């Protein structure tokens, strides 16, 4: 493996893509060189300091495993494949949608992604096709000092229905970068469920952007579970672009050690008669840090918007710190918008109640946090997805009752 400074020489070493993609990649490389590392002086990056971040990594591809739950996708006309392969087989779709929701020149890191990404997941569901069982991609990274550029491009055509689980995992590493982009196109009347489970090991810096565009009378439901990485900045954005659209964004995260989470969300109401509902719940222990900043943006003309944004945080240690910063920007006059946020320790009355039943404090806290997250999972209707998420949470919280004993 060669050390990679993301320079001209490294760029030339990349396998060549199809002509239109190669052009996009070249342009992204120029943007990457021109753009500065995001500064904490900007509003977008004020909670995450990357000023000392060294952009030197080993060239390495994560291993990617796709599972179809045994469904015959070809028969349905569904394409579920490597993104580079799809660039050949389904060139028109890839070229029409890749980097349209998250353009390469958004930040230095999206440009880096655009220039150096190889692989990724392409998922296309044709018109009115319903995929019964969840499809899943596992992106696994196990090389120290590696940079990975996971990309998911999901296109649900008109009236299509699909559930997709994006899973990211690694062992603890000395240092690694996950520079990830998820683009989801929810066609008119389509129903898309998107679940991301981020379980990177310690040492990983995760910079992820997820953006969905929801069409007319379409439904987008997302669940983000974030447990891993030393530093995780996760942006989740939904654009309600067609009248009558619906978006649900659920989030569950748990931070320990010195983990730093910077969660940002956008509910962007462009079209009228849309509703969006966001609920993020986080728990923190040790000396971890989490910031949630959310925006509800109602554009002029997005009348009859119904938008809600809720962030709840339990802080289990006096050295941990959480902030929740809601923002509403409303440019229409006939709307219903609300937000709620809370940050606080675990309820002492509840702890005493559990203790009085023989449950030691650490175990009581584990149970309370499990229940706190359960309220989010209860909103996930698909049993298989909920069960998956419950297992991930149980595993993450299992150590809370042993390691947490004071």
């Amino acid at each position, binding site marked *: 493996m060669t050390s990679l400074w993301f320079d001209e020489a490294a760029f030339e070493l990349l396998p060549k893509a199809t002509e239109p993609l190669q052009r996009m990649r070249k342009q992204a490389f120029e943007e990457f060189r021109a753009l500065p590392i995001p500064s904490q002086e900007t509003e977008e990056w004020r909670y995450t300091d990357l000023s000392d971040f060294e952009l030197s990594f080993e060239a390495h591809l994560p291993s990617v495993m796709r599972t179809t739950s045994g469904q015959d996708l070809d028969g349905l006309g569904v394409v579920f494949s490597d993104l580079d392969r799809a660039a050949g087989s389904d060139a028109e779709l890839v070229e029409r949608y890749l980097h349209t929701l998250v353009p390469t020149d958004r930040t230095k890191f999206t440009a880096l992604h655009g220039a150096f990404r190889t692989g990724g997941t392409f998922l296309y569901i044709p018109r009115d096709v319903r995929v019964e069982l969840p499809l899943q991609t596992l992106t696994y990274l196990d090389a120290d000092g590696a940079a990975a550029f996971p990309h998911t491009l999901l296109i649900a055509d008109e009236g299509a229905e699909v559930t997709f689980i994006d899973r990211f995992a690694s062992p603890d590493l000395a240092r690694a970068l996950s520079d990830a982009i998820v683009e989801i196109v929810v066609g008119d009347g389509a129903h898309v469920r998107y679940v991301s489970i981020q379980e990177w090991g310690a040492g990983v810096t995760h910079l992820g952007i997820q953006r969905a565009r929801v069409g007319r009378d379409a439904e987008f439901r997302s669940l983000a579970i974030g447990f891993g990485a030393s530093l995780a900045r996760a942006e989740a954005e939904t654009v309600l672009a067609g009248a009558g659209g619906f978006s649900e964004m659920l989030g569950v995260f748990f931070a320990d050690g010195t983990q730093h989470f910077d969660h940002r969300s956008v509910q962007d109401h462009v079209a009228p008669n849309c509703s969006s509902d966001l609920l993020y719940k986080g728990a923190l222990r040790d000396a971890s840090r989490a910031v949630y900043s959310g925006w509800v943006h109602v554009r002029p003309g997005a009348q009859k918007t119904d938008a809600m944004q809720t962030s709840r945080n339990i802080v289990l240690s006096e050295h941990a710190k959480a902030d929740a910063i809601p923002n509403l920007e409303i440019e229409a006059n006939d709307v219903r918008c609300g937000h709620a946020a809370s940050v606080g320790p675990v*309820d*002492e*009355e*509840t702890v*005493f*109640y*559990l*203790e*009085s*039943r*023989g*449950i*030691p*404090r650490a*175990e*009581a806290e584990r*149970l*309370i946090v*499990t*229940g*706190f*997250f*359960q*309220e989010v999972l*209860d909103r996930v209707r698909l049993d298989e997805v909920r069960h998956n998420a419950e297992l991930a949470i149980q595993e993450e919280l299992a150590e809370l009752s042993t390691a947490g004993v004071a």
Partner: protein
Amino acid sequence: MTQNDATAPATLEVKGLRAAVGDREILRGIDLTVQQGQIHALMGPNGSGKSTLSNVIMGRPGYRILEGSVTFNGEDITLLPPDQRAKRGLFLAMQYPTEVPGVSVVNFLRTAYQAIKGEQISALAFRKHMKTQMDRLGIEDAMVQRYVNQGFSGGEKKRNEVLQLAVLEPTLAILDETDSGLDIDSLKLVAESVNELAGPELGVLIITHYQRMLNYITPGFVHVMMLGKIVKSGGPELAHELEDKGYEGVRRELGIEAHEEVDEGPDEGVA
């Protein structure tokens, strides 16, 4: 000090107990002994310190012991965390049971059962044990699938407390105003459940303002508490005497000023 004699009945002994919330002394010297197999009723007007006593015995934070002792089976428990007191066989049915969002009654009880017994039990074996207790108390399946106390009616909350008592099998249970906030049907149901559970294996301390629960449960010992002290003790006849004369009658008899009654601890407004 610890009694190791397995055949001796479990014994809760409170001696000369004085306790405060903040700077306010609420318990002013309590002496009380309750044994496994006995039923005691501790009666008193609002603010007499009844709930404070139960909270101090169970170790709720926010109370300060000034003097005296609380021992269980000869062991001083005042420095033990609440879960250790439960593990030794104490149980407190709360006056205001707390909601535990997202945690089902069955999950909650299995976790508690395993902690108290110090052993793992399969979900199936636990369900069987719990079902036996539910049948005894006439509790329907739906209740134990719900989240602990969330959306429960007053009666359901109290019945859930009694179910926990049955499942966790303590040797000594304190029922703190388990009769409060119940309509007559619920009260009867809860009282019958307590009667079902009372017996040689269980000591019960019923804390109540009213005599009405004692229409269904006959205590062997009745104590009257006022101003942080037990001012009178007797047999079951004392409950009837109170019913006739009221607390005012006892005050007159003992020469106690009514207006000295104080507000009680954290669960009555401080927290």
